[in-house]
């Protein structure tokens, strides 16, 4: 009985069936192109973790343009009219105290900051007098990632990467559609399938000395895409 109720409510959320459930891949109409294409403004995932290579640093990842096939990855580009902004709140009020602003121009990426924004909120200008890290955008064909480092020790990378997100999206959609009542067991008899296996994203990665993030013990982080 309980299952039945739950099952019914899952069908109830099938109203969003045209939108694929994923991390944040094509999460809204404004960032979804014709044929459910993830646009350059579509943020698919955000990560924030202590650097595996240096405990004194934090790493921030903004992934965009999800579900790229290898052939699509070879020609994918970061739109030059779009600012990718990593927002950092270190006072606990969920308003950004610092931003890292990433822009791509003529095959180069720059990461400005972390620096106080000109103004918080949904409209941004680039704090162009802030120190920045710069690197060439790594091409799909490149065998190794191109990394730029600022005078302040901030590292930047931009280019195609394997999508680190994993999820049995197909099975979830079947549950939503009411043609399945549970996930696959992940066994040889009942295998689960990662819908993001073999797909790429356009990634922006920065590594920042923790000393540049203020003295708080924890921060709140979110990413934004902004266009002009």
């Amino acid at each position, binding site marked *: 009985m309980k299952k039945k109720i739950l099952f019914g409510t899952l069908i109830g959320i099938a109203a969003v069936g045209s939108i694929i459930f994923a991390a944040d891949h094509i999460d809204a109409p*404004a960032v979804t192109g014709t044929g459910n294409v993830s646009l350059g403004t579509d943020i698919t995932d955000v990560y924030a973790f202590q650097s595996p290579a240096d405990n004194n640093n934090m790493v921030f990842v903004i992934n965009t343009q999800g579900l790229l096939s290898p052939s699509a990855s070879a020609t994918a580009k970061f739109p030059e009219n779009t600012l990718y902004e990593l927002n950092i709140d270190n006072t606990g009020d969920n308003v950004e105290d610092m931003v890292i602003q990433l822009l791509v121009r003529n095959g180069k990426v720059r990461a400005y900051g972390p620096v106080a924004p000109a103004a918080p909120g949904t409209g941004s200008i680039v704090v162009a007098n802030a120190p920045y890290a710069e690197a060439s955008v790594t091409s799909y064909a490149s065998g190794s990632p191109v990394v730029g480092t600022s005078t302040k020790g901030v590292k930047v990378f931009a280019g195609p990467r394997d999508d680190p997100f994993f999820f049995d999206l197909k099975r979830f959609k079947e549950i939503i559609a009411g043609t399945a009542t549970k996930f696959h067991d992940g066994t040889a008899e009942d295998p689960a399938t990662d819908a993001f296996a073999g797909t790429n994203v356009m990634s922006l990665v920065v590594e920042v000395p923790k000393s540049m993030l203020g003295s708080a013990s924890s921060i709140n982080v979110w990413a934004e895409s902004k266009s002009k």
Partner: protein
Amino acid sequence: MLRINNKISFSFLITAALFMASCKKDHGNNNGGDSFDTSGVFTQQDQMGRPAINTVFVGADRKNEFNMTTPSAMSAAFKADFLAKLSAFGYTQNALGQNADAFGGLLVTDVLNAKLSGKTTFFDGTNVLTGRDLADDVIDTELLLIFGGSTGASNPGLTSDHINSNDKAFLTTFPYLASPF
């Protein structure tokens, strides 16, 4: 009506101020002989903190709006929607001991919490919401918290998708994400 007018003039003022500041900044930049174009006012298109929040908890008619709402304003604008969705899921309490109001109140402000010392993970069995690592199985964590009930044992068929890791090994050096397929 008054409220609408206030809103329009307020946003106009912000745009005008940003534009003026932008012109000023450009000037400084050009003087430096730097051809990297940083000009203009950039307007929000998408935003994200925790995985799958907008996709799961916000109705189709408000998804664009959620992406345009600053995190500090999300709770006032969307908390009722989140509580309604949790109720539709049959939610009463999760393994963290949070009732619907507490859990919905946490999720609705879509920011990723990250500690600046120690382990950074979405959930590793011990640490909860101290960051998000590449290898974190965030979908299982969210399924467990939404469907697993107060012990995590409820609805066992819905609390894991049984995809537990990425299809490619991560790098030990920057930028850590694996090369593309």
